[in-house]
């Protein structure tokens, strides 16, 4: 069974991820002290739909980058860059890091290639602009959108 659909209980930093209701697809929420941390949490939410991160090892790293001025559009850009990279390399991802220099975003992610014995979740086709929002919330940041599955 892939990751349970509930707010994560990570203790390493403030934030975490959660899901919100959407009829056909999956609404994801990432929270963090900064925009970058919130985006990392959103990526955790999206990729936990495809495989239980607790079952994954970190044997490989992937890098992505993109240019985006619009803070809201940067969220689907980030998620879609990761989804594309993961699919291109045949990998399941579990951990994410993102930094920003002006409008240039540079990300890394860790995970492993799909194994035959892995319990699979549901494929995420891409991040949409539906319910897209990146905003300050409770002293930190919250990023949310619907991902198509």
């Amino acid at each position: 069974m892939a990751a349970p659909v509930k707010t994560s209980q990570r203790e390493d930093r403030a934030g975490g991820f959660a899901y919100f209701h959407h009829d056909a697809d999956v609404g994801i929420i990432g929270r963090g002290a900064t925009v970058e941390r919130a985006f990392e949490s959103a990526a955790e939410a999206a990729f936990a739909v495809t495989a239980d991160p607790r079952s994954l090892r970190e044997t490989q790293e992937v890098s992505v980058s993109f240019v985006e001025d619009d803070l809201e559009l940067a969220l689907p850009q980030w998620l879609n860059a990761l989804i594309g990279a993961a699919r291109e390399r045949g990998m399941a991802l579990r951990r994410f890091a993102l930094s920003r220099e002006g409008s240039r975003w540079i990300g890394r992610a860790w995970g492993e290639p799909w194994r035959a014995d892995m319990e699979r979740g549901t494929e995420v086709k891409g991040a949409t602009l539906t319910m897209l929002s990146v905003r300050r919330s409770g002293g930190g940041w919250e990023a949310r959108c619907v991902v198509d599955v």
Partner: protein
Amino acid sequence: MDLERLEPAGPWTWRVRRESGAARAEAILYGDGGLLRTMDNKVLEQLTNVARLPGLVGPALAMPDAHWGYGFPIGGVAAFDPERGGIISAGGVGFDISCGIRCLRTNLASEQIAPLAPKLADGLYRDIPAGVGVEGDLRLSAGELDAVLLGGARWAVQRGFGKDSELEYVEEHGRIAGARPENVSALAKKRQRGEMGTLGSGNHYLEVQVVERIHNGAAAEAYGLRTGQIIVSIHCGSRGLGHQIGTEFLITLAKAAGRLGIDLPDRELACAPVRSPEGEQYIGAMNAAINCALANRQILAHLTRRTFAHFFPGARLETLFDVSHNTCKPERHETNGKSRLLWVHRKGATRALAPGHPGLPQRYRDAGQPVVIGGSMGTGSYVLAGMDSSEARAWGSASHGAGRAMSRHQALKQWQGRQLVDALRERGILVRTRSMRGVAEEAPGAYKDVDRVAEATEGAGLASRVAFLRPLVCVKG
């Protein structure tokens, strides 16, 4: 859905009440009160947003299986006139471009299948690549992939996946014109490298079904359907290539809309005029993805035939029809007594050509186009036929599935995959899957009542019921 916001506008037809001073076109939903009540209010919001897009002709439409999607509602149909600034919207097509159903009729009867059903289920599960991260055996060079994007199912037939004669029963005869592989990014092509001939996951499936009821004898005869006959339905789309095109153009068109002064009520409706550089670029890429999907289903049909031949050496699996339900196509339609070329978006909706339409194969000319309403793995599916009235009602369109009645999140809370698989086995339905989570998300109870959707589809004059198919084997991604 709050029915107070609707007013009856004919049998099985509801119009969204306009707020005073609201500047938008009409929005129409098809269905009965029971079905509409199960829909989220977001369907109304999304439909009225579509009704505000430039160049819309006629109303924005929601089929009886409509549910809350992204941008357009799933089950949304809308036509745009390029002569009046009509747009094409990536959000109106969706990420899984040309997702659709290939329906195969066989010469096998249910009693022949029964003794070997578990072995057949295992064989299909082994031979049909399904599930997230699962790749196929086919590896294509860059040149070959471009040939797929130009040739569609015709390319697949030329490569030995099926026969030329079945292309007549595939929408667009297996290949849509206007594909521009050069508009497809390198990443989209890379993502497709290992994904030709794969099913995917989520609501995608391969089902072995039995014809349980015939509703319309004449149409069933034209379609070659009879009670007790085994049918195979394959539901999937353009895989990673289509997903990547969708994600890239969503951003491109969202920015183009801003630059061109198109006021988007929802950014997901990202669009550009059909006749604009951005619009034309998307159309070329989208058509390439449509051909990719047509080729993918052609390959999967071939793999299915191979598995059946192993267990049933005399089995014949012929294409009944192949319909897409995430597309935007230029089509000639009559409006106000004048034939116009319109770009018809069908987001989770199927084309349903009326009897006599010149685009139909001769065999189906009197019956109308076969339409498949794919139901859940525990209930069943319908084959329907396009009706004379479907053209005037919905630009020749109909429902594509049962439609979700509950979110995946809710379904996961309510059901467990293993328990569902066991319960379905007790009812004679064998499920093979790599994802118990996927099974729970796709629980039969998470979908609308497919009987009511099919009845409403017929009642609304979109497509009439021909046969009901009960599932026997389901391979889920």
